[in-house]
């Protein structure tokens, strides 16, 4: 039966054909194709991993954002409270400072008033003594006149002084 007896020519050419095909593909096709396939598989694996991570991060991001928001609010409240406290303190400080200053000014004023009073009293005393001296002088000059004249004189002098003043 021809079907079951292998033909030498066909065996020979089959070896040759397979050899040629194998060499061509082995040299020019398989390394490139298989490397390409492996590289693509790696790339896809990496992509999937990356996407998974990204999703995870996205899921976490909302939580994190909420956390940050709450934290920010707390910080804001703290800051406001702090500021309020500082404001009150500053006002308080300003007030005490102002009081102190006012007290100082008033004290100085009191001191200067007292001094002026003293000076005025002194001047008055000096003037009074001066007037007394002048009166005494004039009285002494007219000692010969009567008592009436003397009284008149004193009165006139006093009037004079009064009018002078």
């Amino acid at each position: 039966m021809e079907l079951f007896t292998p033909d030498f020519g066909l065996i020979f050419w089959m070896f040759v054909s397979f050899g040629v095909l194998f060499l061509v593909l082995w040299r020019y096709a398989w390394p490139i194709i298989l490397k390409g396939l492996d590289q693509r598989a790696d790339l896809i694996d990496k992509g999937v991993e990356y996407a998974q991570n990204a999703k995870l991060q996205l899921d976490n991001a909302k939580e994190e954002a909420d956390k940050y928001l709450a934290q920010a609010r707390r910080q804001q409240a703290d800051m406001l409270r702090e500021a309020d406290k500082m404001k009150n303190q500053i006002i308080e400080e300003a007030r005490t400072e102002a009081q102190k200053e006012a007290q100082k000014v008033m004290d100085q004023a009191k001191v200067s008033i007292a001094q002026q009073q003293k000076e005025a009293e002194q001047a008055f005393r000096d003037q009074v003594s001066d007037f007394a001296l002048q009166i005494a002088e004039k009285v002494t000059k007219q000692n010969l006149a009567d008592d009436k004249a003397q009284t008149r004189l004193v009165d006139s002098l006093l009037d004079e002084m009064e009018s002078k003043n």
Partner: protein
Amino acid sequence: MKKFIKYIFVMLAVLLPDFAARGAEAEPQSPAVAEADGAHSDEGKVNPKEIIFEHLGDAYGWEVPFDHHHRIPLPIIVKAKDGGFRCFMSSRIEHGEEYTDGGAVFTIAKFGSPHQGKVVEIVDGEEYRPLDISITKNVAALFITVVLVSLLMLWLARWHRKKGSKSPRKGLGAIETCVEFVYNGVVKATLKEDAPKFAPYLMTVFFFILGMNLLGLIVVFPGGANLTGNIAITLVLAVMTFFVTNIYGTKHYWKEIFWPDVPLWLKFPLPIMPVIEIFGMFTKPAALTVRLFANMMGGHMIVLVLTLLIFIFSAMNPVAGGLTTVVSVGFSIFMLLIDVLVSFIQAYVFTMLSTIFISLAREKGHEGHEEHAK
């Protein structure tokens, strides 16, 4: 592909009227028979056995559709008895003529001779069968397959070189899917770290077989040769797997054959197990050979028989013939579709078994594992 199908339709449209005319003037014999029975059978007589075996076997020329007088001539290369090689076209001896070249007379052996249908040299009136390495129909189909498979794979390789990690689409995508299927599903899954070493051989085997199987299903010129249904082809493939398996076999593999882990009486005075194991070495490739050969030949044969049924029944009764035509054509189409599936499955099975044989021969065994453990 669409264009190709269009071509077939155009060809049919041109040739059918011619056919109908011929059919009308001659006997109710269809062109398929005319094509099938070739030069041998006489008018009107359908000899199914002859037709089937002619179609399954090899030929020196390549049939063209609807014309059984002319064939595509192919070169015949023979080593004549005087020791010199002779090369001439098959058209010179196609119809039983004698061709003389440098004193050597060649012809095709007639029906009844031990070398029936083969080229013989006539020496002193006796038929002498020379060493024959002709480019027969099968060899030519082999070359076409080689060219086709290389072109497809080089095309895919070019894509990978140019486009990097981008995925191809359409036709190239389909090819790449097959490559990936075989590489990841069979070679890598079975051989693990040995995969890159044996992948080129196994992938070449797969695509070569697949190419031959599918080309064999195309009925007209570039296809139609029953390549994988020829025992020479499958034998060569199996022998190569045998060599790869045994050349790359590990120490453990050879120990398992000559001194397996069985009770001593099974291997010492009478080497029962070693003999069985050595026998097993050869049954593996034999199984590979016969499986692929029988499956593909069976597919071709069923389609041929279904077609021939039409002519057998037509010879009995025109009505029965008409009915059989409808049934047979339906079944033939169904069988051809099944054969497309079988083509793929058989290429897959051959590759998978080769991979498994290689992986069994690559086993490191317990010693290796223990050494690793230490």
